[in-house]
């Protein structure tokens, strides 16, 4: 919860819009694919923190002007959704309406803020918009960008990205491209987005349709208000797993296994699955796994091409060996993309579903080039993403951590950031488990 006192921390809020500098054209339409429609109730909210050195000379005016050039390449993010009059299927009219741009100020320095964030993750909500698409589809921006300028001159750049536009890897590529443009790399103004694969109405049914997907959970119709409110109160907690931590966990749980058979993401998933099952009443038998698929994406395209799979444990997870869970995750994870698309397409994409949080969900954004963004050759101090519009089972997002700038070695010092959004009661119990496992003492990555 954000207290009124905290709300005054961020002030002087102004709203405007930025859009493509070039006219996209009349009657340019984009049809979301079934996978896009399956994700429509979810939102990715990312925040990047840049120091004063990185942002010197980047006034709000300069930032906005660079965005007009940038959005020429991504005009789909500037359109607005409508429903087809005959089927009710959502589609997007690329009418250059624009991305909402929010300017704000904060009287703390970035470092002070990051310290405060450690104590209270909810402060994050002050830096990123929580607007969702709806109730008026034609007037709801699918993307909201906020720039909060801190006392020290640094700023936080946040995105509230509707998942229907694309997956986490797409967003990261998208924002990295902005940094390239503002740094003066030539904007590829003439190259169109791959319109061919986006404009076709993906009505064809996939081949395998024998079983219903476990990861896709239908929900009560939400109409034109594209969000899902979980029934219980959710809390967020971010944990930094440094390399020493990861080494310790690996030796503790997978010491007897060959290192190449212990992929990083799946091993973290297995450990957390076990820990959550230990403290939750009604242990999660099924988990959903989302991983990005870098091979599938064309350059400069945004899409939902993440691989979604579900894993069911047919034994009791509580107290089980994480290695068994790891084997399940690695060997028995079945991709459900085709089934998801088939189910969504059954009624022309009108029904509403959730994927994140329908079961306990683990999302891998480790592959994303999160720190590939550079302003004046400075990487962000910190960057993270959360997922909103979740189901009650909660979501755990695994992201790369920033490299420690003080490190002298050339090996990766970052480790991973594990951001968990879970029911509050479960979260407090889990924190105890983490403490007992020595996970909660760590050098601040923000110092």
């Amino acid at each position, binding site marked *: 919860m954000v207290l009124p006192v905290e709300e005054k921390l961020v002030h002087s809020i102004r*709203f405007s819009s*930025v859009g493509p500098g*070039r006219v996209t054209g009349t009657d340019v339409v984009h049809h979301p694919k079934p996978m896009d429609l399956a994700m429509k109730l979810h939102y990715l909210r990312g925040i990047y923190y840049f120091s004063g050195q990185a942002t010197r000379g980047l006034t709000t005016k300069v930032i906005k002007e660079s965005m007009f050039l940038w959005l020429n390449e991504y005009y789909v993010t500037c359109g607005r959704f409508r429903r087809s009059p005959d089927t009710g299927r959502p589609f997007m009219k690329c009418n250059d309406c624009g991305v909402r741009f929010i300017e704000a100020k904060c009287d703390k320095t970035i470092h002070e803020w990051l310290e405060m964030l450690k104590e209270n993750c909810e402060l994050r909500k002050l830096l990123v918009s929580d607007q969702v698409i709806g109730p008026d589809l034609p007037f709801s921006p699918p993307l909201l960008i906020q720039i909060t300028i801190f006392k020290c001159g640094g700023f936080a750049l946040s995105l509230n990205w509707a998942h229907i536009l694309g997956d986490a890897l797409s967003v990261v590529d998208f924002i990295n491209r902005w940094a390239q443009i503002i740094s003066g790399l030539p904007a590829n103004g003439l190259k169109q987005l791959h319109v061919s694969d986006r404009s076709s109405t993906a009505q064809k049914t996939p081949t395998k349709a024998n079983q219903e997907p476990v990861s896709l959970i239908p929900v009560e119709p939400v109409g034109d208000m594209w969000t899902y409110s979980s029934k219980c109160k959710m809390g967020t907690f971010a944990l930094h797993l440094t390399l020493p931590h990861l080494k310790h966990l690996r030796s503790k749980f997978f010491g007897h296994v060959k290192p190449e058979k212990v992929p990083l993401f799946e091993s973290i998933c297995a450990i957390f699955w076990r820990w959550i099952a230990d403290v939750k009443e009604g242990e999660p038998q099924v988990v959903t796994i989302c991983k990005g698929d870098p091979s599938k994406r064309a350059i400069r395209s945004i899409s939902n091409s993440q691989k979604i799979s579900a894993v069911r444990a047919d034994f009791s997870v509580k107290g089980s060996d994480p290695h068994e869970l790891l084997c399940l995750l690695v060997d028995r994870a079945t991709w459900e993309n085709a089934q998801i698309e088939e189910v969504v397409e059954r009624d022309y994409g009108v029904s509403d579903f959730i994927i994140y949080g329908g079961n306990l969900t683990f999302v891998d954004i480790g592959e994303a080039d999160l720190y590939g963004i550079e302003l004046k050759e400075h990487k962000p101090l910190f960057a993270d993403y959360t997922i909103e519009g979740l189901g009650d089972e909660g979501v755990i997002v695994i992201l790369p951590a920033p490299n420690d700038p003080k490190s002298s070695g050339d090996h990766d010092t970052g480790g991973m950031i594990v951001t968990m959004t879970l029911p509050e009661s479960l979260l407090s119990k889990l924190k105890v488990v983490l403490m007992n496992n020595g996970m909660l003492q760590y050098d601040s990555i923000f110092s």
Partner: protein
Amino acid sequence: MPPILPELTNSINLKYVKLGYQYLVNHFITLILIPITLGVLLEAVRLGLDELLSLWQSLHLHQFHVLFLSFLVVLLAAAYFMSKPRTVFLVDYACYKPSVTLRVPFSNFMEHSRLILKDNPKSVDFQMRILERSGLGEETCLPPAIHYIPPKPNMADARKEAEIVIFSAMESLFEKTGLNPKEIDILIVNCSLFSPIPSLSAMVINKYKLRNNIKSFNLSGMGCSAGLISVSMARDLLQVYPNSNAVVVSTEIITPNYYQGNERAMLLPNCLFRMGGAAIFLSNCRSYRSRAKYRLLHVVRTHKGAEDKAYRCVYEEQDKEGKVGINLSKDLMAIAGEALKSNITTIGPLVLPTSEQLYFLVMLIGRKFFNPRWKPYIPDFKKAVEHFCIHAGGRAVIDELQKNLQLSAEHVEASRMTLHQFGNTSSSSLWYELNYIESKGRMKKGDRVWQIGFGSGFKCNSAVWKCNRSMEARADDGPWADSIDRYPVHIPEVVKI
């Protein structure tokens, strides 16, 4: 078939008769002089040189008489040249090209309106209907302060907009003409709705370090026709001051005037007015004779303010909530038509060829004295001038004038396309339109162009220019640089937003 042919032949015959009549009347003096001169020459040749000499001797002209006569001739010639009004040359002009980062697509305008006027859906619908039928395109621009939701314009933002627009146009003008700011003798700035202290003309003087004996003027409150009022003023001043350079800056600063209330009649300007400005370099120096693009032939100003209805039809006032806006009355088109009629009755005799005037006179007399049922003859203004620049005040204004003056689509193309690309930029719209005609390569040496401006008051002002030199069709140094190749476009009656 047969019944049509006689009609066709009839109309063709009539056409040739008309052409013959026009040629005869318009070149009457030449046609009379040629036989007379020929006659005299023939007579002289017949008489022979000796006879002519003896004729000369018989006049008994004394040396004194010869001297006196030649002195008289010289005196008369001098008096004639001195009293002739100085020719005013338009050396060149430059229009402000707004950055694409300021553009306002329809969907964006409507979305912002819905958020700003969230308690008044009827007003939002009204704005949408206006925008759909406005004739504007997706690239018109509003100043940065107006892009906020809600816009909270302050004086600093207004000054910033003035600086962006005016300085950009002036810099472009200096570049095109090579004019040194220190050479400016007269500066006239017109901006109707924003009048700070020090004035915008003082702002220009400060920025470019103009001379301290400059004659500067700042016209405010004079509406969309103020551009031509400034030109008229420059012309009058250039009659008084010889060898002088005048710069006229026409603009409208939108930032402080964005209406923030709910009255529908006052929301209309929000939908139509957009950023724009122009700087024009006029001179009476003979050295610009060959370089100048145009020379000014006539300026005619008509003011209907004596009539209450005309006076109140564009009225700035506060609404019930105290918010200031411009109220446009429903009679606007009718009053504009009346003002136009007044204006063209004055300018007609100045620009129409004699044939048209004679015909008009004959028809007028005929209607009055012989047969009142004869249709009133509207002179064909297309014979007076080759190009028209009608103030792009709105689609309705252009439609009305096209009807009244019986103009073809091509004649009003410059106006319609300017409205589409730039919106209603108030007093500077005439210059964007002129630039369109030049960029399309339609302006030839000797062509005349008629600029018609309308504005609050209610005023209708006209200026007629003559193209002084040939020009190549280039747009890359003007506001149409990126867009001229896409024009003309078909503008639908109603755009689906």
